[in-house]
């Protein structure tokens, strides 16, 4: 019988919300939906699937891609191979999905954000969402990683509660082992508390320009934050990063300058009350999420705003 295997992501006891997107895509794909989850006190979405397979293994063992390979082998042996295997598009989901694809010789499509059931094609971002490719898997099972926020509205409750079954966890491999979690260092400022964020991105060009944006933030009484490229280049400290690997913010106003709007950034700021974007590229994805937009040279806008704010 054909089925979709949904590999749940759990982290420090939390059933991650982005699993709902995998569950939603699972519904769209049709057939039996089987959820894989480590055995524990996770608030698993039992009603949203047909069956739950609980792996008797600690979370750190389950999340390890090499152990996941063994776990998948056991699932295939018990249930046969699924048509699709869904992982979350996340640090651990991406890692395990790609490794499993190599291990089992299966097709892999990552960062799936759309599905056309008529054509059987999956939508995958290219060039930071400027264009998308429609992809078809040449064989089954196909491994997919699912973009957070893309399918959760399709997750639907089933008539009957899922049948739960326990499965022995595979012995954990020695070749890769979890040591410990490392928390981020405490920072001088908490950007999640700011009402008004001025956020800068790659478009600012070079480090010498940062000072001018600090001045603008000062003049507008905004807090300065940034997108990943700015943090990676150490132009702003890590604590000021907005996005999935940084902070999720919801200020009253989010003014984005020179940020094109990679999905990981959007995920960290899309719930802001008012988003204003300034970018020279009219096709920048951020304009799709912004309430107000200005197409133009961000440095000129910066300098004019400073001038007007002082006047």
């Amino acid at each position, binding site marked *: 019988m054909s089925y979709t295997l949904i590999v749940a992501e759990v982290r420090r006891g939390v059933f991650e919300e982005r699993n709902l997107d995998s569950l939603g895509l699972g519904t769209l794909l049709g057939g039996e939906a089987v959820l894989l989850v480590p055995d524990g006190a996770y608030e698993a979405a039992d009603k949203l699937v047909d069956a739950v397979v609980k792996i008797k293994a600690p979370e750190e063992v389950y999340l390890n891609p090499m152990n996941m390979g063994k776990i998948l082998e056991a699932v295939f042996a018990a249930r046969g191979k699924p048509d699709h295997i869904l992982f979350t598009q996340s640090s651990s989901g991406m890692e395990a999905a790609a490794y499993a694809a190599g291990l089992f010789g299966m097709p892999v499509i990552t960062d799936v954000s759309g599905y056309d059931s008529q054509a059987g094609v999956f939508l995958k971002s290219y060039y930071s969402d400027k264009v998308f490719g429609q992809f*078809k*898997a040449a064989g089954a099972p196909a491994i997919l990683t699912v973009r957070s926020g893309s399918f959760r509205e399709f997750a639907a409750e089933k008539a009957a509660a899922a049948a739960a079954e326990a499965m022995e966890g595979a012995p954990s491999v020695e*070749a*890769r082992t979890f*040591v410990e979690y490392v928390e981020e260092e405490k920072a001088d400022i908490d950007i999640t508390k700011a009402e008004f964020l001025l956020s800068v991105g790659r478009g600012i060009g070079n480090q010498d320009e940062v000072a001018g944006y600090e001045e603008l933030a000062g003049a507008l009484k905004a807090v300065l934050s940034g997108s990943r490229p700015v943090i*990676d280049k150490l132009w702003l400290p890590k604590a000021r990063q907005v996005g999935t690997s940084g902070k999720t913010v919801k200020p009253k106003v989010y003014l984005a300058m020179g940020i094109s709007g990679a999905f990981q950034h959007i995920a960290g700021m899309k719930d802001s009350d008012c988003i*204003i974007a300034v970018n020279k590229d009219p096709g920048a994805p951020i304009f799709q999420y912004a309430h107000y937009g*200005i197409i133009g040279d961000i440095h000129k806008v910066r300098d004019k705003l400073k001038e007007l704010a002082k006047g």
Partner: protein
Amino acid sequence: MNILVFTKRVAATQEEELRITGEGQAVDLSKVPFKVNDWDNYSVEEAVRIVDKSGGSVTAISIGDAESDEVLRRAIAMGAKDGFLVETGDILNDPFTRGELIRSFIDKEKVPFDIILTGVQSEDDQFGAVGGVLAGLMGLPYASMVIGIDAVEKDHVIIRRELEGGLQEKVKVATPCVLSIQSGINEPRYVSIMGIRKASKVERKVFKADGYEKGSPKIELVKWVYPEKKGGATMLDGELADVCGQLLGILKEKGVYQ
């Protein structure tokens, strides 16, 4: 430690408006500049740092057309000893095909290694899957989103992986292994034009990709499409001063600026 590091020449599209041609057959990149993939720049730097500390040598490998020689010269200027180009004119969209080609190349040419570094993803296709596919195919231990390499020992490395929301996990990985490097792991050194010119004198080896297996593609690109239009923003138009005045007006209305 012998380190193989992969580096890719990619279209720099961040500031460019992209156009899809025909009925979605291709994305027009004819006017777009090319550069080294950001993630690979961090990977090359990390490889050179490991070797500076622990000895051994770095071999930079690029899969691509003849123009990709440019990213190999760059890697050599940063400290790689050798540069190998696995030359192909094909755009390999399928990460599986890429992984299989690399596996076959390493195997057939008997390229020695202790650690293979890739970037987490390339800026163009953003698959983020080649490193994992390669590790799975070769049966090697794997870790991705590597944001710190804390220790390089004889038979293992201690690394930190970037998770979400600022959290990291420390992991022990046995060598030989494949690691995919996250951007921001280090501060890549500056590469001068002089440095690249000097690196040009180091011979780069060219291998024809046709000589290796890459299997049949496991995924098929059907067509290219533009992103679905969502609500979209209200665009502020006019002279610079006017537009900026409107912006300040919105800030006042939202109560964040007096």
